[in-house]
């Protein structure tokens, strides 16, 4: 449904989006993940034809974003970050305007607006001006705007930011429900949100795509590079020298104090290999005994941190150098 190829967008000297390509299949809920300022919003703005990419292109529902921006926009429901709304308008006026602009006119319009008020539970506030609404209601009005023309594709920029926990759950459930029949692209920097709602995720950092896959795939991939913890009963000097000599161990260290002749060690395999079996075999041939052996699970948080770590260091450095001249 969405196919982006080599998208690039610059703002002056800064490259906001650098050569990003990805696809979103029909019926998929794709999570767009990255630290703030990674280029998520810019990418979404390009797909919704709010911004024009400097190079590269994308097709949305079969229409090219450069050739047929109007057709693309017709098929997308877009919820910008923080759901900007016309504060002077009443809820019902606003939805009427959006419906009309979406080409839903005459008889269909009232039905569409009523349906949206129903779906997003806005019944009590239809005559209120949007400026007087709470954050949660504003987000719902934003969602109503996004859904009113029953689009095939939803692009939601941080749909749960600034909401309280109940509202977050409510919105997530709505997204899940919508994801059953629609193609959804949503951005977030909140990790549990991805596991809660998305079937696949993409991590971008500094405008570049750094990883993609299902949440499980990504944490598996990361745990392969992860660490193995082992408790061995045996003489410590011999264990130490054997591990130091073994080519499949990248580095290792002892965890805590030895309990008599029981030693707990954390090891990392060389070149990311799984060393559980190697460890087992060594213990058996040496005649020691094995008290525990497990691979440490890597959470999505750690995957995310690891993939976007370099950026944080650089950003911190940049911030410092920017502050200095002043």
């Amino acid at each position, binding site marked *: 449904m969405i196919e982006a190829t080599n998208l690039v967008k610059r703002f002056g000297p800064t490259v906001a989006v650098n050569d990003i390509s990805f696809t979103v299949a029909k019926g998929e809920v794709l999570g767009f993940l990255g630290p703030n300022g990674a280029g998520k919003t810019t990418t979404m703005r390009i797909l919704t034809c*709010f911004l024009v990419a400097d190079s590269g292109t994308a097709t949305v529902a079969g229409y090219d974003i450069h050739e047929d921006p109007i057709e693309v926009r017709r098929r997308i429901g*877009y919820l910008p970050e923080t759901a*900007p709304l*016309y504060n002077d*308008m009443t809820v019902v006026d606003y939805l009427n*305007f959006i419906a*009309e*602009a979406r080409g839903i006119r005459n008889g269909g319009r009232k039905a569409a607006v009523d349906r949206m008020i129903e779906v997003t539970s806005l019944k009590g506030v239809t005559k209120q001006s949007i400026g007087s609404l709470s954050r949660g209601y504003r987000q719902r009005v934003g969602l109503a705007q996004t859904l009113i023309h029953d689009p095939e594709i939803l692009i939601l920029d941080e749909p749960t930011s600034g909401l309280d926990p109940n509202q977050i759950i409510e919105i997530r459930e709505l997204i899940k429900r919508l994801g059953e029949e629609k193609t959804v692209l949503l951005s977030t920097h909140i990790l549990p949100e991805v596991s809660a709602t998305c079937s696949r995720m993409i991590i971008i950092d500094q405008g570049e795509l750094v990883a993609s896959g299902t949440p499980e795939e990504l944490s598996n991939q990361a745990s392969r590079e992860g660490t193995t913890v082992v408790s061995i009963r045996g003489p410590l000097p011999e264990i130490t020298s054997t591990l130091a000599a073994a080519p499949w161990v990248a580095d290792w260290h002892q965890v805590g104090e030895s309990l008599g002749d029981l030693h707990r060690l954390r090891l990392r395999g060389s070149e990311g290999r799984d060393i559980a079996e190697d460890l087992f075999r060594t213990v058996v041939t040496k005649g020691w005994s094995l008290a525990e052996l497990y691979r440490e699970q890597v959470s999505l948080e750690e995957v995310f941190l690891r993939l976007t770590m370099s950026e944080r260091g650089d950003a911190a450095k940049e911030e410092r150098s920017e502050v200095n001249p002043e």
Partner: protein
Amino acid sequence: MTNTLTVFKKEFRTYFASPMGYIYITVFLVATNWLFLRGFFLINQASLRGFFGVLPWIFLLFVPAVTMRLWAEERKVGTAEVLMTLPLRDHEIVLGKFLASLAFVAISLALTLVLPITTAIIGSPDTGSIIGGYIGALLLGAAYLAIGIFASGLTENQIVAFIVGIAICFVLLVLGENIVLFTLPTPLVPVFEFLGLGAHFRSISRGVLDSRDIVYYLSVVVLFLYLNLRTLENQR
């Protein structure tokens, strides 16, 4: 066309959705009536020449205030992102906004019709020049509005939009006024007088409806709406 109408309706309603619209109109009416009536009984003539004489200067402050919100607010609040990802073409949005502001100015002008009616009751003014004056005022207003919308598209700060709007209108107005014309070599005088916003208004409000004057105002409108479109494109 229906898309333009949709944007028009939304923008036009917004003028009256907050007290701002009413405040603008009140200030405009108080200013025009006061400036007109101040000298009306002294001159003792049933004529609206005084009113049309000050109108380009009142418009100079009033019209950019009407348009300053149109793009600056959309960009500041972020609603531009919603508006410009709707299946609407940029020119439909620009035209809708322009026509809504024109309707607002037309209403403000219509409310000053009390003046010619009063004048007609107590004397016998030249109807031709009054009708011409109102047509001219609307054309002049349209030119100012287009400039104001262009200025509003340049920034997300309404005050900046307001001041830039006034500045451009002022330059284009004063270009053809005597203050500037006196300083110019004689061959350039008719050129600058033609370029200025004021001279065409004066000739229409004399009751002479010349196609050149109308074409002039329409070109200013088209030029600045086009420039507005280009700024929007550059921001994408």
